[in-house]
């Protein structure tokens, strides 16, 4: 059974949508269906265009094996912890992303175990709303199964791309999702605060906010954070 990456679970915790109230359930169900059609599936990513975020599921066994193998290549959190037991290491997302020493670890842990991939687009009313990438542990695992998989996932089999992401790059996007979603939340909150402050509607407040961000030369995420801090006193 495929399970959400910790970062994906974190992102799902922050994701709220009336149109998609049970995304956490849906994505796990997508994973289950994918494995039902192609038992070799070891990962699945769902990207949402509107929010610009990616959620990723992986097979826990595969993930453990991959991490176990990868940590010996360039020193990883487990190796370092064993080498230096008195100083237990806490590894967070920031550590993994910010520190170059983890780069190889991250790349290997992402790429190992994936021998084939299949990418679908999700289209709703003629618009691309997202994409699904499915990853399998054996080469050619999806051969002859495109249509069945597309049907199972509710995607179109017309624009399928094979082996386009053997590096499992969507996993890295999924790691960034919690930070991205929290930034979006803060921007949304800040715009609401401004709308209330100036008696404007949401569109006007958003325009004011974006304009201020550009004029000040700061990112919207940073500006939102500052506004919220000011609001909190």
């Amino acid at each position, binding site marked *: 059974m495929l399970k959400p990456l910790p970062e994906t679970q*974190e992102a799902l*915790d*922050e994701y*709220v949508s*009336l*149109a998609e*109230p049970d995304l956490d359930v849906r994505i796990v169900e997508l994973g289950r269906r994918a494995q039902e059609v192609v038992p070799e599936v070891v990962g699945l990513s769902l990207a949402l265009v509107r929010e610009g975020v990616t959620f990723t599921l992986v097979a826990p066994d595969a993930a453990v094996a991959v991490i176990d193998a990868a940590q010996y290549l360039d020193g990883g959190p487990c190796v370092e912890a064993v080498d230096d037991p008195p100083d237990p290491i806490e590894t967070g997302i920031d550590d993994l992303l910010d520190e170059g020493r983890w780069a190889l670890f991250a790349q290997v842990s992402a790429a190992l175990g994936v021998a084939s991939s299949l990418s679908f687009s999700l289209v709703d009313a003629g618009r691309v709303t997202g994409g699904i990438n499915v990853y399998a542990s054996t080469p050619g695992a999806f051969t002859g199964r495109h249509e069945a998989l597309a049907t199972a996932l509710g995607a179109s089999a017309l624009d399928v791309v094979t082996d386009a992401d053997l590096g499992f790059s969507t996993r890295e996007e999924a790691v960034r999702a919690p930070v991205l979603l*929290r930034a979006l*939340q*803060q921007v*949304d*909150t*800040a*715009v*609401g*605060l*401004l*709308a*209330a*402050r*100036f008696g404007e509607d*949401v569109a006007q*407040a*958003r325009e*004011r*906010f974006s*304009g*201020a961000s550009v*004029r*000040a030369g700061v990112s919207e995420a940073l500006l939102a954070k500052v*506004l*919220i*801090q*000011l*609001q*909190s*006193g």
Partner: protein
Amino acid sequence: MSSDHSPLPASDSGNVATGPLRLLIADESELVVHGVESMLLPFRDRVRIIDQVEHEDRAAELVLHDSFAVTPDHFDEDKALARTGALVVYTWQLHPTLVRLALARGVRGCLSKQLSGAELVGALVRIRRGVVVVMGHGDPSWKHDGQSRLAPREAEVLALIARGLTNAEVAEEMCLSVNSVKSYIRSSYRKIDVDSRTQAVLWAIRHGYAATALPVLLSPVPMTSSINAPPKGSDAEASS
């Protein structure tokens, strides 16, 4: 909500007060005072009721008072607000209109006298942390503007969202699971007829569930000017 109130010892800034919360029950009958004392006895390590003597409210972190009771006005709420900034309405009448007015006036919460001891302590502790809490008991919802019906938990979630908390932080603040928080967010969105966090924050502030305390900011003129010179006719200009 006035911004003149002194901050709570445990305010939004994250400075969490330690030790038992010092609680004053203001202008209440002996029956109620002793009843609350008895009810909170098992929680004496978390809440300590201080004596009701004149000016004692300066030492109180929170002041419970039944602002909606029809009684002679012995207790000066404005004075208590000015001194402690931490008045909590404790009442049988958790009427939404009264609650909204009270919140707009700057009270830190509205709690029903029907709450159990544990519920009351939980609510007070959250208020001490800076959360605006509206909490009834056995009444899953209360009307707002005769249209929307927000449960106290939904109202509290909205208030916390308007303070910029993430779902995970709201969950921690309210001692709930994230899934419960998301469920409250969705149900409140439906009740107030919004579909985004931006709209929810705006609604929460406009309906008195959260304060707007932004100083002069982001006027259409350049940022440097806007900080120093508020736009004509703005609220900030009037208050600065």
